[in-house]
């Protein structure tokens, strides 16, 4: 007994020594890391601060003009769009999630993954396909006129508030679907059983238990859809449905007032922050909810007309949200591929690939550094800095573009002035109109996307793994190469793939901060669709959809196994 106590005390002190020696040797060179999260947080806060401070800048003529003419319309448009998309994607996402998670109907297995496919199509692509199909001159109305005569007064106008809402719901419902399905899979069947054992029937059980219990997830998914809606630029631009993002663009590039653009951006940021605060509330509640998978939950079989109604509902959603846009894009692309697949297209593609690769590399490197810094210094200040750094995903691209351009222009002017005064050299503008602006903006916006997979991969590298490696005689560097990197590899790859695709699809930042002549696929789509040239936007759109499918399929494979 005595011996045992002694030896255990010895190993304890040995462990302590080992820990001390790590901090003094292996990590010594990395002490500067401590600052990284704070630096990145500062980079994220600069555009936010810039935009918000413009609220206190005296209102210019352009702003006055905007307030008098368009501001009320913008607020109303944004409000109805937000409400419509939130309600629509919640209804669609929750019902599909319930059917595929808890019920049995023909094709359930197929639909449970296929209903995520719309995530691969950027909303603005769905938007222009919908316009091209259902507009007055589109094939649907043309065919109907040929068949029923010229008077189609009953046909709804696709270029309307309802049209934008429907397109966005079809694009964003998968967020709600994904989260709600997760909740229903883990607790849906079980909560029904509990309700039944307490004397409720299934319908009561769904509304009284399953739905309230899944509320944090449903709300979380709806908030994601809402943030995408508020950040969206391409869809509303194509529909000519003015919201804050398009107004920012017009103030800057049509009225040439960066101040007015910034002031509009500040209003949008206030709305977005309100949504974030609500979202955080739900997320903190989600943490307490149990997510244990209940033992083999046999699905509830739907029979007869119920089964086929559900089948029709799921296949209808999949048809309009994915199959129809993809088929139409394919038809257009095949029609124009001879003419459009030229040097210029390859240039757009090259620009897109290059930007996405750079952005993915930069973002993942920064995320990796932050994750290591947070692991090394797990104090509340660092954690706060990490949280601020990853909030950029909620900032609409249009806001970021303005918020980053203004300080960079300021630094640029200062630099060239200094160069003039000190060295009498005409430097011109050094940073503006280079890729640097774009990359900083991308990094700010997509840091959260790369941070979360790398961070969750890092959770698997526990402290005792380090100690075990040291116990086996590995140096700090060897531990990094032989233990950490192999564990983190998957997370880093996922992060890079997600950022890569997100940057490829990104429209407002690219459009507003790109160097002259740097047109990408997304920019090409914007330019063609604003002129109603649907066919000419098809080839770049097909490329984006294919790129978007890759990480999605990868993700589905991962969740299947």
């Amino acid at each position, binding site marked *: 007994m005595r011996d045992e106590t002694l030896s255990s005390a010895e190993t304890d002190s040995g462990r302590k020594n080992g820990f001390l020696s790590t901090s003094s040797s292996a990590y010594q060179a990395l002490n500067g890391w401590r600052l990284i999260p704070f630096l990145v947080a500062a980079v994220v806060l600069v555009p936010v601060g810039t935009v918000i401070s413009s609220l206190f800048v005296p209102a210019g003529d352009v702003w006055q003009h905007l307030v008098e003419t368009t501001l009320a319309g913008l607020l109303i448009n944004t409000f109805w769009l937000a409400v419509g998309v939130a309600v629509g994607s919640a209804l669609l996402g929750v019902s599909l999630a319930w059917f595929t998670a808890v019920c049995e109907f023909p094709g359930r297995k197929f639909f449970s993954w296929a209903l995520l496919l719309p995530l691969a199509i950027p909303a603005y692509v769905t938007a222009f396909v919908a316009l091209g199909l259902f507009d007055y001159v589109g094939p649907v109305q043309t065919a109907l006129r040929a068949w029923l005569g010229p008077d189609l007064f009953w046909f709804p106008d696709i270029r309307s508030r309802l049209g934008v809402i429907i397109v966005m719901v079809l694009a964003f419902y998968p967020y709600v679907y994904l989260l709600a399905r997760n909740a229903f899979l883990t607790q849906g069947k*079980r909560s029904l059983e509990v309700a039944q*054992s307490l004397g409720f029937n299934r319908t009561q059980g769904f509304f009284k238990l399953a739905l309230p219990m899944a509320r944090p997830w449903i709300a979380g998914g709806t908030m994601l859809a809402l943030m995408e809606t508020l950040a969206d630029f391409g869809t509303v631009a194509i529909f000519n449905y003015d919201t804050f993002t398009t107004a920012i663009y017009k103030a800057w590039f049509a009225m040439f007032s960066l101040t007015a653009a910034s002031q509009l951006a500040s209003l949008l940021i206030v709305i977005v922050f309100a949504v974030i605060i609500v979202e955080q509330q739900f997320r903190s509640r989600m943490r307490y*909810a149990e997510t244990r998978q209940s033992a083999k939950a046999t699905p509830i079989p739907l029979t007869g007309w119920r089964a086929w109604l559900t089948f029709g509902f799921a296949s209808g959603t999949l048809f309009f949200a994915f199959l129809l846009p993809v088929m139409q894009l394919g038809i257009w692309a095949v029609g124009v591929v001879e003419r459009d697949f030229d040097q210029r297209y390859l240039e757009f593609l090259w620009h897109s690939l290059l930007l996405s690769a750079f952005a993915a590399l930069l973002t993942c490197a920064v995320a990796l550094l932050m994750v290591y810094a947070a692991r090394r210094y797990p104090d509340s200040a660092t954690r706060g800095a990490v949280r601020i750094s990853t909030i950029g995903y909620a900032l609409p691209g249009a806001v970021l573009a303005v918020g980053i351009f203004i300080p960079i222009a300021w630094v640029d002017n200062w630099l060239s002035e200094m160069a003039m005064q000190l060295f009498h050299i005409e430097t011109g503008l050094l940073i503006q109109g280079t890729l640097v602006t774009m990359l900083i903006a991308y990094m700010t916006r997509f840091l959260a996307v790369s941070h979360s997979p790398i961070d969750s991969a890092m959770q698997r590298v526990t402290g005792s793994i380090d100690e075990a490696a040291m116990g086996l005689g590995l140096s700090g560097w060897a531990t990094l190469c032989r233990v950490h990197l192999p564990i983190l590899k998957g997370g880093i790859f996922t992060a890079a793939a997600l950022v890569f695709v997100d940057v490829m699809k990104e429209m407002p930042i690219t459009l507003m901060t790109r160097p002259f002549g740097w047109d990408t696929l997304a920019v090409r789509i914007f330019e063609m669709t604003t002129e109603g040239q649907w066919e000419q936007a098809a080839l770049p759109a097909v490329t984006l959809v294919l790129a978007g499918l890759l990480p999605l399929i990868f993700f589905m494979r991962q969740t299947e196994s």
Partner: protein
Amino acid sequence: MNMLLELGNIRHAYGRQTVVNDLSLALKKGAIGCLLGPSGCGKTTVLRCIAGFEPISAGAIALNGAVISNAGFVLPPERRHIGMVFQDYALFPHLTVLANVGFGLHRLQKTERAARTAEILETVGLADVANKYPHQLSGGQQQRVALARALAPKPDLLLLDEPFSNLDVTLRGRLSLEVRDILKSQNATAILVTHDQDEAFAIADEIGVMHQGEIQQWDTGYNLYHRPANRFVANFIGQGVFLPGTILDPHHVEIELGVLAGEVPHQCMPDCQLCRKGNPVDVLIRPDDVVHDDASLLQATVMHKAFRGADIMYTLRLPGGGTALSLVPSHHNHAIGEKIGIRLEADHVVAFSQSAR
């Protein structure tokens, strides 16, 4: 006596695999029954069939004399008045303890509901945490909330699915006695499912040992241990070894350690083939049947020893080469390899025909 719950020859198949086969049992009002068996033996499925979550393909289940399940008919679970405590408790994370417990009382008036909720919370000793949320409670408290929630509507029958499997061992022992007291105080009829025999012995009046979808023996804990009906039960319940022996007459069996005299083996019927003189049998010897006695001439060699505090479990090699277990007070501390004197002390014989192995 009228039975509250009767299962008659029920069968449940999952796909092609028969999970429960021709199973029957009956439970009196106010009794606590238990289905005990290794994992995968179908015990939870039986519970879910009784609850109405799973259909049965043959046989019938009756509650208070009324059929609630048979082949092709399942009375919906919500109309059975059967409560259930789930293995993972399945508490509602978004509701307080009070609201969790009151959830099933939706048919009562507001005042009645409050009174019943308060009463049952008092019974399970959770009145002071009524306004907390499940995640703020300890595992044992969560377990009692689940019990209170299931008991609140005064179900005719309460089902408990591995109710203690999420708790640590020390808590299990204490809580199982507490749960028995609570159930008895509510005069509840209950069926418990577990793989832990100590739990089963602590809570249940009657225990059914299950194996491969069938009940091997339905009996009291005492009888399962001392009068196992077959080899599976003998192996599954408690510890022991089988030693080869020969029948002398229905009251005596000779084994290596001597002649065992005792009651007729209870599973032996008149004119059974087993009890004929000269028949070879396997005799179950429990650790408490082999007593350490320094004066005994019968010597066995210590092969293993496991110190258990109050006593030591010795694994002994018998002179003839067989193995036996012996539970000895721990002050008789012998080294491995030492020879110690032992003596048989059993007042009944459990023997199984060697041919029926």
